[in-house]
């Protein structure tokens, strides 16, 4: 534990620190937290998810769907990224807060297609 090192430490600081710690000491984390954490951790992919892994999963799962939709739709260039990527996300176990998802959602249609053609 570190010692306080601010100039002018006085009784008031001691009072503030004590009151703050007294307040926080009244609270303890939920009892089922560990169980929930481990359950969630088990459901995550064993390897950290990166953009490439995510895009490959996307291609494997929805390429046919995207392709047929793009052929049928007259305005696929604007609809494709949001409609199908969001639909894929909602059906998968990928957590909505992942950085990879945010990156993917920001990709333009052109970049998605360039990737698919790669």
């Amino acid at each position: 534990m570190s010692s306080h090192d601010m100039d002018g430490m006085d009784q008031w600081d001691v009072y503030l620190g004590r009151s703050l710690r007294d307040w926080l000491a009244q609270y303890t984390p939920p009892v089922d937290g560990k169980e929930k954490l481990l359950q969630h951790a088990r459901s995550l992919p064993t390897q950290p998810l990166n953009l490439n892994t995510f895009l490959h999963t996307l291609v494997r799962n929805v390429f046919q769907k995207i392709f047929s939709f793009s052929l049928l739709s007259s305005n696929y260039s604007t609809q494709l990224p949001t409609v199908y990527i969001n639909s894929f996300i909602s059906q998968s176990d990928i957590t909505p807060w992942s950085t990879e998802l945010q990156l993917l959602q920001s990709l333009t249609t052109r970049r998605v297609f360039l990737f698919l053609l790669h």
Partner: protein
Amino acid sequence: VDLASDRLLITLLQEGDLEALGTLYDRHRRMVYRTALAITNDEEAASDLLQDVFLRLYRFANRVDASRPLEPWLYRVTTNLAYTFMKRRKRWWRALKDMAEILARETKPSSEKLAEKEEEIDWVRKAIASLPMTHRVVIVLYYANNQSIQEISEILEIPVGTVKSRLYYGRQTLKKKLGMEKELRQEVTYEFT
């Protein structure tokens, strides 16, 4: 905190050992939860942030340097996530929750001494919550978690001078609020005596 065994647990976690994650959770959960609570002033958010912090530890275990203490890493992730949470939270929701809390508290009976203590704690809770986020985080790490200015600088990745300045202004604001609170209390006492 046993740093040596934290290191071992991180190494095990990097190999995907979930038991190691559970042990690290047991060891640091109070610190993470209370830090998140002090910043957000929201129990539910603190519980969610606690889960998020340890899930990140699991997902990004390979990015954690096992040779360094784990606590600063946990503080950094906790404060960053709490900061993001606060930015996203809508103001009306906060106001509504505060109102609900006040109503709930008013129905609780308590002895005089307990009430005084509760009042004191309530003052700190409200005063901390009223600080700007940048000042609040520094105040919480310094006073509740007993981190030094140097340590806070490393955790938040900001210069020592910035930590000192935020601490100074945060402290001044709190002191001013305490003074006003004391005056108010005295006025109330005069009215009833």
